[in-house]
């Protein structure tokens, strides 16, 4: 015979102050965990939307990021005529020669942060899935650049119509583009030749991006470039390149999980405390239940279920607490040594993780009190005040 669940539910309602305080404690622990998971989740989502399966990034051998890579024009000429490269609207191969640099600009938090500058060939613009949100695209020869949406939003100096200063002078921001929250949104784009000349590196550029005709051709192209001894280049698929950057989130993820775990131990102790008090205060009730014929096991499971209910409530509250975070923009550093903006993403999946986490810590904190409740002798329990 089991004790009805309603008994536990009513008890939680009757002692609502205690219930709410304990549940809130658990909720905060869950909220800390969930906010970190939402952050990492958002970063991963941004990096995932950044890559196209047909794109291949070509760097110098030994270079780990576009920023530390060096790419020379003769190499570009050789690369351009590799088989498997898709053709653009003008019939030319879709290969973009790019120059990467960073500049430091004050962001809305008032700190100076680095922004990636990317100069690209016309093909580069054609192969990327971005659209202009405000203004126009840059026109070669006019010292014009366009800013990604996140850059325009996060850096007051890089808004539409403003001028930013790098290289030999000012550059006009003539447009804002939208890359659907991909990492491109955290970049400023311009014409490769003009930017390279201004940055004093007309012949030593950074990298090339290639669009293959299909996924098989992309793989073949990767092998072809990596095996070409003469080229001294190293090709990675865009997906792999951005996947590697997710490793960037590892320290944040570990710190967050570590903090949440420590807080969980603290909350488990607190839950234990509450449950022990509940058991002590309901000694007579327990005695009565035993007299009525409920077994020790049903007492144990009843109190255990109550602890689980309490912590599940905490988990739910925790989910509610992090909901406002969803969609909030923040930024971390990326492989190019500059800021990458992304949104917190609170998904149903991580909410499930949060509730599960809460229930786990509630079970840890609820078992011993439930056990002590079950062990009470009927007579002593009835006699307790």
């Amino acid at each position, binding site marked *: 015979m089991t004790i009805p669940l309603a008994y536990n539910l009513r008890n939680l309602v009757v002692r609502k102050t205690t219930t709410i305080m304990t549940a809130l404690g658990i909720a*905060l622990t869950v909220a800390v965990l969930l906010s970190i998971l939402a952050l990492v989740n958002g970063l991963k989502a941004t990096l995932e939307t950044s890559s196209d399966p047909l794109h291949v990034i070509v760097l110098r051998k030994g270079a780990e990021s576009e920023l530390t890579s060096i790419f020379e024009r003769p190499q570009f000429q050789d690369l351009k005529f590799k088989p498997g490269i898709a053709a653009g609207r003008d019939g030319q191969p879709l290969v973009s020669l790019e120059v990467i640099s960073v500049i430091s600009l004050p962001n809305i938090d008032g700190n100076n942060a680095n922004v990636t500058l990317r100069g690209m060939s016309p093909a580069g613009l054609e192969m990327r899935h971005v659209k202009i949100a405000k203004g126009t695209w840059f026109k070669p020869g006019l010292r014009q650049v366009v800013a990604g949406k996140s850059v325009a939003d996060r850096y007051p100096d890089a808004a539409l119509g403003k001028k930013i200063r790098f290289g030999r002078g000012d550059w006009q921001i003539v447009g804002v583009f939208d890359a659907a929250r991909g990492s491109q949104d955290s970049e400023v784009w311009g014409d490769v030749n003009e930017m390279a000349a201004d940055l004093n590196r007309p012949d030593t550029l950074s990298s090339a991006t290639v669009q293959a005709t299909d996924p098989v051709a992309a793989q073949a192209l990767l092998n072809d470039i990596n095996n070409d001894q003469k080229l001294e280049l190293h090709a990675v698929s865009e997906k792999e390149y951005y996947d590697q950057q997710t490793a960037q989130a590892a*320290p944040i993820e570990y710190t967050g999980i570590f*903090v949440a775990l420590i807080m969980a131990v603290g909350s488990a102790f607190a839950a234990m405390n509450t449950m022990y008090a509940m058991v002590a205060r309901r000694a007579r009730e327990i005695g009565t239940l035993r007299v009525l014929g409920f077994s020790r096991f049903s007492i144990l499971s009843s109190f255990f279920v109550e602890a689980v209910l309490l912590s599940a409530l905490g988990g739910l509250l925790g989910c509610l607490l992090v909901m406002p975070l969803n969609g909030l923009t923040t930024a971390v*550093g990326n492989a190019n*040594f500059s800021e990458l903006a992304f949104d917190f993403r609170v998904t149903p999946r991580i909410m499930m993780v949060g509730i599960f986490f809460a229930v786990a810590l509630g079970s840890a904190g609820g078992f011993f009190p439930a056990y002590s409740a079950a062990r009470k002798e009927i007579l002593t329990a009835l006699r307790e005040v």
Partner: protein
Amino acid sequence: MLRYLPLIVKNCWRNRRRTVLTVASIAISMCLMGVVAAMYQAFYLSKPEDSEASRLVTRNRISLTVSLPKGYLQRIKAVPGVKEAMMSNWFGGTYKDARDPKNQFARFLVEPEKLFVVYPEFRIPDDQRRAFEKERTACVIGRDLATQFGFHVGDRIPITGDIFPGDYEFTVRGIFDSPRDSHLMYMNREYPEQAQSEARRGFVGMYYMLIDDPKDSTRIAGAIDDMFRNADRQTKTESESAFLVGFLSLLGNVKMFMIAIAAAVMFTVLLVSANTMAMSVRERRREVGVLKTLGYSSGIVLGLILGEACSISMLGGVIGYSISMVLMMGMLKSPFGGFLPGLQLFQPLVLLTCVLVAGAIGLLSSLVPAMGASRASIVEALRSTD
């Protein structure tokens, strides 16, 4: 007040299990608080050690990744108050497989004869120092790095360059000891530079300076930046510790992150403590009635309960601080330790913060139940059965 202390202690001890659980719960939360407070202090409040405060770093104003010309060296050195200036570059490159994070230790190109002048706190035997200065392909490594990989003097370390393209092999000519984390490798800048084309030589990533008096650092930094204000490449000069903290911003908004954690922890502790105190006071209403019958005033009863809550939570604070010291010891030993300038194991200010915060939490959390209990009339309190 002091003569009531034994009574407070006795009260704490009457429900041992609850007290232990409460102290444990508070201690664990406060240990996080301790770590966060110590890191916050190290990053944003600490006065750098003398050796760090008397070192300045000049880099390109646009960004760390844009270089400065070699020609700035003599002009920087000529600024009054600058004892020595050294050209340095972040070498980057790859040792074995870069995907393994342990292979990603810091590598810098420096001027060998100046390294140990600018870093007087590095300890190295004189013969090793001279050997490093004499040989173009030599390098010196920190003790931590040597221990991690088992490198010895005379070993060769192969590195593939990216910023400085090419394959290099550096011979370890010395191992130095540093008071901080030393997963570091310093190489002679001549060697990789000779391997570059003419157009790519002569660029300097950073100038490290040792100055005569740390008090002059603001003036000297200003003087250097003013000197190059109208130059082709403008500079930004700051103290080495500010320069290092700048790297942290690459991890995101660290300051916000720390404050958010501290706030969440504090609020959780407040809830835990309030909950326990409410339970404890409720159980004791009758006892309060007895105390009052014996002539204890409402004020004393209030003081007793507040005192009990404060002692429990302050005990939790002290224990939590001790745990945080152990945690920090582990962090300083980790490779991440190099990015924690000025993080010290024992900081009186942090201990004070922990204890005071814990005390305040104890006070706050017990205020409501204590007021209720102390205000209740004797008859009412004696009649209470819960």
